[in-house]
């Protein structure tokens, strides 16, 4: 089953033999780490979440090991019962912050066959090395040592904050306190994210903190906090343009910024423009193409686009992808997007109950025009063969789209077309023997046996 970070992705295999000195150094690090763990467990089991001690230990531990989800949870509990004002009981999301702790036994017992180096979630390679992140326990708390943290308001570290024991705070004071905690927590996680950009727990903790902003701050202030978050996502996507954590996070942040809770309005135009800029930087970025495909239906609806405007928009998208295919016809990302556009022509006649209809851009296009578009796409792709006669994706598209065309025309392929399909399929078999099973299935399905 799926799991969270820490596997050995992309780390060169080396001899596992350590020198005695290295071993001693490891033992020292282990002792320090386990001492922190013991302290954290002792404090947590006594319910001392409102004391600064436990909070400070979570800071140290999370810098050593940002995958330690139990410690992220302890930190949340510290904030709820300590640093945050009590005006808003708990988080809006949490269903209750008390868990019964497993066993009072704190000694990590003998895990049979535990993994010293394990795992990630299915979604992609996990963080490079859990534990490399952060600084040593000794300088934990030294916020200034992290240059990135200065990028935005970095107020007093939450560590320095006394637990909110005073019950008689004014609303303004509690809000200021909560804002300061929120900003401090957001700043705390940035260096951890930079070090482990695929660590689920950091992203989810960050979202939890942002939700505290909605629950605890006036909408105007909360909105500002969430707006700044877009900058962080853009920075993360600038470092890794395909990081699906960051893309998912971006979607979530935008959803919230559009919500009434944050006095929001649609951001579909700016988000669409963002995919533009990401695609221009890197045509291969399927994450950006995907996002674009998802934004378009809403974009057109909100623009109140009429049939003519929709057609013009569709033409522009086709032109964009043609230009891209002209320079990179091997790129799968481009072909998937082309497929998305073509499905817009095909799906009204091909109601597939299993896939949502893609007739979203030009839903009212007359059948004759759809056939016209498809024919012109086939011709354009065919022209690509002049420069790239050994690119498999071209033959695959031709094959698929020709079948769509005959389907739209409500007929079976004629003899000439069958010969042509067989020729394309022959090229596919030749250029892409890896998927010969698929080509064989296609041959049978379309009845091309005698033409091959």
């Amino acid at each position, binding site marked *: 089953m799926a799991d969270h970070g820490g596997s050995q992705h*992309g780390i060169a295999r080396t001899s596992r033999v350590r020198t005695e000195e290295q071993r001693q150094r490891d033992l020292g690090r*282990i002792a320090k780490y386990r001492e922190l*763990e013991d302290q954290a467990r002792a404090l947590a089991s006594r319910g001392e979440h409102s004391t600064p001690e436990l909070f400070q230990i979570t800071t140290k531990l999370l810098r050593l090991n940002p995958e330690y989800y139990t410690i992220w949870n302890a930190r949340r509990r510290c904030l709820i019962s300590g640093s945050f004002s009590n005006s808003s009981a708990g988080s809006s999301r*949490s*269903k209750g912050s008390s868990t019964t702790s497993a066993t009072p036994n704190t000694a990590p017992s003998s895990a049979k066959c535990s993994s*010293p180096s394990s795992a990630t979630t*299915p979604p992609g390679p996990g963080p490079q090395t859990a534990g490399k992140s952060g600084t040593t326990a000794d300088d934990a708390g030294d916020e200034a040592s992290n240059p990135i943290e200065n990028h935005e308001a970095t107020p007093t570290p939450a560590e320095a904050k006394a637990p909110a024991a005073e019950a008689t705070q004014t609303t303004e004071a509690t809000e200021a306190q909560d804002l300061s905690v929120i900003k401090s927590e957001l700043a705390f996680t940035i260096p951890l994210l930079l070090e482990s950009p695929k660590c689920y727990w950091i992203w989810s903790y960050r979202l939890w903190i942002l939700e505290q902003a909605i629950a605890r701050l006036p909408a105007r202030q909360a909105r500002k906090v969430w707006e700044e978050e877009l900058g962080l996502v853009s920075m993360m996507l600038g470092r890794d343009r395909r990081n699906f954590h960051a893309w998912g996070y971006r979607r979530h942040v935008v959803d919230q910024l559009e919500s009434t809770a944050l006095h929001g309005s649609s951001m579909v135009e700016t988000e669409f423009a963002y995919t533009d800029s990401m695609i221009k930087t890197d045509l291969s970025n399927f994450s950006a193409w995907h996002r674009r495909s998802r934004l378009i239906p809403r974009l057109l609806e909100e623009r109140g686009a009429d049939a003519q405007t929709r057609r013009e928009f569709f033409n522009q998208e086709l032109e964009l992808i043609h230009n891209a295919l002209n320079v990179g016809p091997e790129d799968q990302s481009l072909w998937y997007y082309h497929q998305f556009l073509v499905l817009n022509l095909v799906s009204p006649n091909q109601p597939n109950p299993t896939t949502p209809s893609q007739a979203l851009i030009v839903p009212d296009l007359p059948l004759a025009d759809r056939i016209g578009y498809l024919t012109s796409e086939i011709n354009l792709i065919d022209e690509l063969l002049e420069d790239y006669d050994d690119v498999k994706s071209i033959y695959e598209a031709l094959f698929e789209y020709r079948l769509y065309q005959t389907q739209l025309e409500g007929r079976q392929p004629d003899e000439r077309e069958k010969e042509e399909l067989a020729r394309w399929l022959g090229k596919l078999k030749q250029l892409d023997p890896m998927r010969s099973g698929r080509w064989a299935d296609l041959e049978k399905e379309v009845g091309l046996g005698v033409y091959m």
Partner: protein
Amino acid sequence: MAQSFSQLPEDLRLVKSAHVTYIQSLDSRKDEYDYWLTEHLRLNGLYWGLTSLHLLGQPDALPRAETIDFVLSCQHETGGFGAAPGHDAHMLSTVSAVQILAMVDAFDELETRGKGKAQVGQYISNLQNHETGTFAGDEWGEEDTRFLYGALNALSLLGLLELVDVDKAVQHVAACANFDGGYGVSPGAESHSGQIFTCVAALTIAGRQDLIDKERLGRWLSERQIAGGGLNGRPEKKEDVCYSWWVLSSLEMIGKTHWIDKDQLAAFILRCQDPERGGISDRPGDMVDVWHTVFGLAGLSLLKYPGLQPVDEVYCMPKSTTARVLGH
């Protein structure tokens, strides 16, 4: 197909005994810093290791009694399991616990010495979002189709699927479908092989494969095989052994494993072995870990590589276990 494996180069053979030794050694590394840094994965690691050993035909290579003791020591009053004693309960470790207990045939001990099946079922069902049908990982609310799959996986093994709204969960998975036939982490998210596995397996457990666009999905999945034989997780990404499982098992569930080159994939996985010390890595020459080891072995098992026990493509456990527990 099995005979074609004999055409693999001589040095490309499964080093079974080295893998067994490697897995047995994993708990003896307490003087390594990484051992402690990965404690939050202990129960998952046990599941990965034990599954590997079962597939290697050495199910008793880890002591059964200690295995059960350890699993039960991770359980909370709520019924959920943490990754190790002292770690908070989470869906992922709870699913691993159920899978381990299923493999060692110890649900009765869960009843007598643990908090009981019903309590585990309760813990899981409490994590379902009644509005959307999806599941959270724990009380803090992170939602993901991984957790939805985990819930259906564990509950079906426990015979407690009726505790949750399966139809709602199915609707949520359907909402995660994309135009390319794949599925993402949530509605609107890009298709990703790992999430496709969780969504297709969840639909399979729910008996709703009719919702899958098998042609389109099969095409997308088969395009994950790249030069060198390995599989990647998304278009234009690098290959990685763990996708030998996510992609291949998904292809198996929709009956299309013949859409990729099995021999080349087997060769790629075998090249990722550490032939001396055992274990499998993400790519040839990298550090091994138990996560890539199990998914490499499970992939080879699905490819019917000789000498491995058959793996269940939905549960990533030995078929003998799912046959016994689910009565297939």
